[in-house]
């Protein structure tokens, strides 16, 4: 099958078929829980932070192929990054890392970015309280 025969890029399909980091983290340092106002999908992102560095990330997603692939990709991208660096990751960067998304599916990558931001916010709030 050529590229024109499929809705998504090879990379998207690869992450969709074998999503990395599916699941939950026990005692996470931050949890992001976001819903997609566009089509009603849901994503949860868990992070483990050690000395300001994200050492682990996992996700659970209810959504389309693009939502699953961007969730998988964003968890890959944040691992090993400092919290500040991770906050810089945009939905475009995630989509680009996946070899692009169809325009109508860009909002699914926004979901991934928001889940990440929300998990980091949760971490920052918790660490303030300590």
């Amino acid at each position: 099958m050529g590229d024109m025969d499929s809705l998504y890029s090879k990379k998207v399909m690869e992450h969709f078929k074998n999503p990395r980091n599916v699941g939950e983290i026990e005692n996470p340092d931050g949890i992001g829980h976001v819903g997609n106002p566009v089509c009603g999908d849901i994503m949860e992102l868990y992070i483990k932070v050690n000395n300001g560095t994200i050492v682990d990330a996992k996700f659970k997603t209810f959504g389309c192929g693009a939502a699953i692939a961007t969730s998988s990709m964003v968890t890959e991208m944040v691992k090993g990054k400092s919290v500040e660096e991770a906050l810089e990751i945009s939905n475009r960067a995630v989509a680009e890392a996946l070899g692009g998304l169809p325009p109508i599916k860009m909002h699914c990558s926004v979901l991934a970015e928001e889940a990440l931001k929300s998990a980091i916010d949760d971490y920052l709030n918790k660490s303030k309280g300590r």
Partner: protein
Amino acid sequence: MKRIYLDYAATTPTHPEVVKAMLPYFTDAFGNPSSLYSYGQESKGAIEKARVEVAKLIGARDEEIVFTSGGTGADNFAIKGVAFANENKGNHLITSSIEHYAVIEASKFLGKKGFKVTYLPVDEYGLVDPGDVKKAITNKTILISVMHANNEMGTIEPIAEIGKIASEEGIPFHVDAVQTVGHIPVDVNGLEVNLLSMSGHKLYGPKGVGALYIRKGTKLVPFMHGGDQERSRRAGTENVPGIVGFGKAAEIAQQEVDKEAEHLSYLRDKFIKGILRQIDHAHLNGHPSRRLPNNVNVSVDFVEGESMLLNLDLEGICTSTGSACSSSSLEPSHVLLAMGFSHEKAHGSLRLTLGKWTTDQEIERVLEVLPKIVANLRSMSPLLKSNI
């Protein structure tokens, strides 16, 4: 990988016999049916032969059949044609909220042009209540249009009851029968319809051709203006190979419809039972018995339809879904919403439609693959832990 095609409601493969019948009309018998020399008259004869077959399939007279570019062409012709021909009588149309886009959008267009349109609700199974039709009628009503069976749910509507009401009131009744003609017996007299839309490629004919049945005496304005083809109702040089193919498909359907409906009903019920047995938290959508023989439509909780569809596609299995994620509007299907589905339940919907060449083995293969796909998607679903 062998492909398993389970989207016959979207389109059917063209029957080999149909292709064979069409071929000469591209090359040897290419004449314009309007030409008077024998080449042309040969094409004209072929069109008339096809018209007879299509008419026979629905119990009509051949002069009541007008060929169109397809189901959408027929729906547009019927709705706009009747509305504009009866403007002096009234401006009210009645249809249902689960019609095909061709009917919904044509009605909305008329709504913008000053017509009033009532979109009747449906119950949880997708059924229109004939009582609602009766109540909606006013002295300005000039058309009632209700589909024979819904393309997503397969629910078969009480057309004969509605037809009776329409004919008592003397209001033209249009039926979009794109999903039923060739698949279950359709008789325009028994159903008391004035107009009925059909499509070639839904019954193993070619794409790009359909027909509108127009009961003698029904007033409607021409759909295309130009030459006097199709008794000046639909101008334009006829799609001769397409029409010949449609005619052949109609001829085959007359012979095979009963047997095929029986066989597909058996496969359908086996399929539905298998899915509901093997996947917990799965539900049948649409009516359990008033249902097209080839339609299986289920909702699977906690998973999203497009991701199910993609996983099935990776296994070579072609299906469709009413999930918001799979539509260009990012809205769940209007049919599911009209049936009162929550966004979540609409999200997990999956339609599998069978056809002439669907086998037991193919269904067994899906029953083997689908539960695994669902389990895998559920393992990554954040909806699950709070609900089970």
